[in-house]
C-alpha cells in the first residue's frame, strides 16, 4: 500500500503537503510525530474517512478512488473506543468472524466475559478487545492508532507479539507516542514534521527531527 501527494488543509492551515508512505506485507511501518502533525489524519485518509484536497492511496498499484474501503483490504484502529457499548463480546467476535476462544488463549482473563456487554468492561479491557479485532481480522493492511497507550505493560508485550505474528500475512502501519515500542517493532519509521514525511535510516534522526530525546537505543531502524 502506498499513499502519496497528500494535501490536507483545515481552513488556512496546511497540515499535510509532502507525504509518501509505503507499507508492504510482512512489514511493520511506524509513524511518529509531535501532537497535531497529522498522523491520525493521515491514517483516516488511508481508511477513507477523511477526504484530503489531493492525495492518492493505492493497494497493489490500484488506486482507491472513492472513500469506500473493503474490510478485506484495510482495517483501522482509531485511538478512541469504536465498538457500540451494548454489544456483547460473543456478538462482536461473530461480526468480525473471529474465534473468541483463540482470543482467550492469548488473554485468558477474558474467558468470563463471553456474554458480557463490552460497555461493562474496564477501559483497558475494552481497548484490548478493540486492538485484537483489528490486528487479527482477515485483512491485507492494519492501521493502528495508539495501540499501546492506556494499556498495561504486560498486555503491550502480548500485543507486540500478536503484531509480529500477524505481520507475516499483512502489512501494518502503527503510530504511538510510546516510541520505544515503535522503534522496537517497526521495520521502517516515518517521522512527520512540518507536513512532510521523513523516512529515517537511523534512530538518532528521530531526535534530530525534534520528536524525542533518544537515550536508550541507537543504531539502524
Amino acid at each position, binding site marked *: 500500500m502506498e499513499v502519496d501527494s497528500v494535501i490536507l488543509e483545515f481552513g488556512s492551515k496546511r497540515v499535510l503537503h509532502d507525504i509518501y508512505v509505503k507499507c508492504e506485507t510482512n512489514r511493520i511501518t511506524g509513524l511518529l510525530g509531535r501532537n497535531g502533525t497529522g498522523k491520525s489524519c493521515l491514517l483516516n485518509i488511508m481508511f477513507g474517512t477523511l477526504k484530503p484536497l489531493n492525495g492518492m492511496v493505492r493497494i497493489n498499484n490500484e488506486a482507491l478512488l472513492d472513500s469506500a474501503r473493503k*474490510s478485506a483490504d484495510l482495517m*483501522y484502529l482509531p485511538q478512541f*473506543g*469504536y465498538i457500540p457499548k451494548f454489544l456483547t463480546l460473543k456478538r462482536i467476535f461473530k461480526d468480525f468472524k473471529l474465534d473468541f476462544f483463540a482470543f482467550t488463549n492469548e488473554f485468558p482473563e477474558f474467558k468470563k466475559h463471553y456474554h458480557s456487554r463490552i460497555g461493562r468492561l474496564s477501559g483497558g479491557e475494552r481497548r484490548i478487545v478493540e486492538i485484537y479485532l483489528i490486528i487479527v481480522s482477515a485483512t491485507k493492511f492494519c492501521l493502528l492508532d495508539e495501540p499501546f497507550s492506556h494499556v498495561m505493560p504486560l498486555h503491550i508485550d502480548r500485543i507486540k507479539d500478536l503484531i509480529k505474528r500477524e505481520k507475516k500475512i499483512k502489512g501494518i502501519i502503527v503510530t504511538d507516542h510510546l516510541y520505544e515500542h515503535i522503534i522496537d517493532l517497526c521495520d521502517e519509521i516515518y517521522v512527520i514534521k512540518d507536513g512532510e514525511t521523513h523516512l529515517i535510516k537511523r534512530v538518532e534522526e528521530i531526535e534530530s527531527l525534534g520528536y524525542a530525546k533518544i537515550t536508550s537505543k541507537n543504531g539502524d531502524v
Partner: protein
Amino acid sequence: MKIILTFYRSFVVASSLITIACLTTISINGLKVLPVMLLFKLVTLGIIILYINLYKKKEFYYYQNLGFSKLTLWIFTFGIDLILFVLLIAVVI
C-alpha cells in the same frame, strides 16, 4: 442485514416514539394531517441523522471496519424506517 439492524438499534427507540406519535395523530384527526405528519417524520429523521453523526460518530468505525460505509448504513436504515412508517399508516387508516 444483522449489521444494518445493529446500527438501526442506535436510534430505533427515538424513531419508534415519533412514529407512534404520528400514527396517533393520524388516527385521531384523519388523513387530512397526513402530509404534515410525513413532513414531521422526515424532519425528525433528519434531526436523528444529525444527532447520530455528531454524538455517535466514533461507532461508525465499527461498521466501516466491517465494510459498511456511513452512506450504506443511512440508506438502508432510513429506508427500513420509512417503509415501516408507511406500512403502519396503511394499517391505521
